[in-house]
């Protein structure tokens, strides 16, 4: 099934400038499996989103249809068809 991933401007060098990427995820789909598919095409993007254990980076937020995944089931959050994953860096630093 298709889901859409919205890429923040600061990471678009890793997606050849694309602001959103459609990925075809096998069902049942979760945030983690969608990111796995995304990683196959964009490995340089993936390692900015997740560490080598595939753990989500602490200061990157993943909104699934508008809800941050950590308020849902984290990487195991189920994805409905045509889900939209919006990736946004959190407010941090100085």
């Amino acid at each position, binding site marked *: 099934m298709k889901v859409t991933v919205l890429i923040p401007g600061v990471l678009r060098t890793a997606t050849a400038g694309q602001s959103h990427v459609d990925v075809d995820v096998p069902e049942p789909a979760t945030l983690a499996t969608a990111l796995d598919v995304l990683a196959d095409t964009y*490995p340089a993007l993936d*390692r900015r*989103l997740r*560490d*080598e*254990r595939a753990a989500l*980076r602490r200061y990157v937020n993943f909104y699934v249809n508008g809800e941050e995944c950590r308020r849902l089931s984290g990487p195991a959050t189920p994805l409905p068809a045509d889900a939209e994953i919006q990736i946004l860096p959190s407010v941090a630093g100085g």
Partner: protein
Amino acid sequence: MTVVVAIGTRKGLWLARSEDRVTWELDGPHHAMREVYAVAFDTRSGVRLLAGSSSPHFGPGLSTSDDLGKTWDEPPDPPMSFPVEDAALERVWQLQPAPATQPGVVWAGTQPSALFKSTDGGRSFEFVEGLWNHPHRPEWEAGFGGQAVHTIVPDPVDPDRLLVAMSTGGVYRTSDGGKSWEARNKGIKAYFLPDPWPEFGQCVHKVAQHPASPSRFYAQNHHGVYRSDDGGDTWQSIADGLPTDFGFAIAVHPHQPDTIFTFPIEADGNRFPPEGKCRVYRSQDAGATWQALGTGLPDNFWTAVMRDALCTDDAPVPGVYFGSRSGEVYASPDEGETWHRIAAHLPDVMTVRAAVIPA
């Protein structure tokens, strides 16, 4: 003669370039908004610049440039991965090309405390399991800066010999290419532990060696300045003559094994130069006596120099360089006798490395 100084800061990398080591051109930031804790010039074949950087948001990475920063290359896959469940790469603290007899070999020290080896000039790295599996590892504690292998000293002759230092943990040495490691901290004090003379657990800030004297090491400790003349087996204090024994950095003259440079800081609890005076201290007799070097350096310098932010180049009359948390970089074209400020108003300087660039 062209000299390039790589200045890694908390928000990117700057490159300073000079023909006379008095007038400098500054170029940057490269890797803007990334914390650059580790840089290295690999001059064994051409000049490759390696930069370990990390983003608070997007994690660590390692980039290389073969044209002095005009272009950078960063492989899409992570340069280093912890092949274990309980750790992930947080930061690259040290990048150390091996001697010229081992072309392509580059060592990397990381947070959490681990060692990686590259045999392709820093493009990819293998995890050194021997150090990770050391039975002491569960007792290596994090210092304020994190728990990291921050110092790697390859033996100039024997490719199987290597010394690393970590905070905390102290000094470890291998004689079999990294398969097994022995703590080598006898004589180094850990005043912050109930037993101040433990086998390991010290907070060694930096270790330096001259390739012509492979059995001799110098160490700047978390309080304590030491020398070992037996390959690290035992250490003796060389702090007499310094205004304080605290500091982070220590560097060796590239041509004189008995000449070393430090930047003393008042104390763990008072991290300023003594009296706020910016001074490099030099010993020309392996730590027996010390001389303050301050011509061209300021007073009222209420900042500190970090463990990798003091270095030399390898010119016939070597230059000496250091950077500060206040974003200033000073250079001496004459072994520390006189100094010029070559950069100011940068972010906190974490590392400084210099190289003479072949014509």
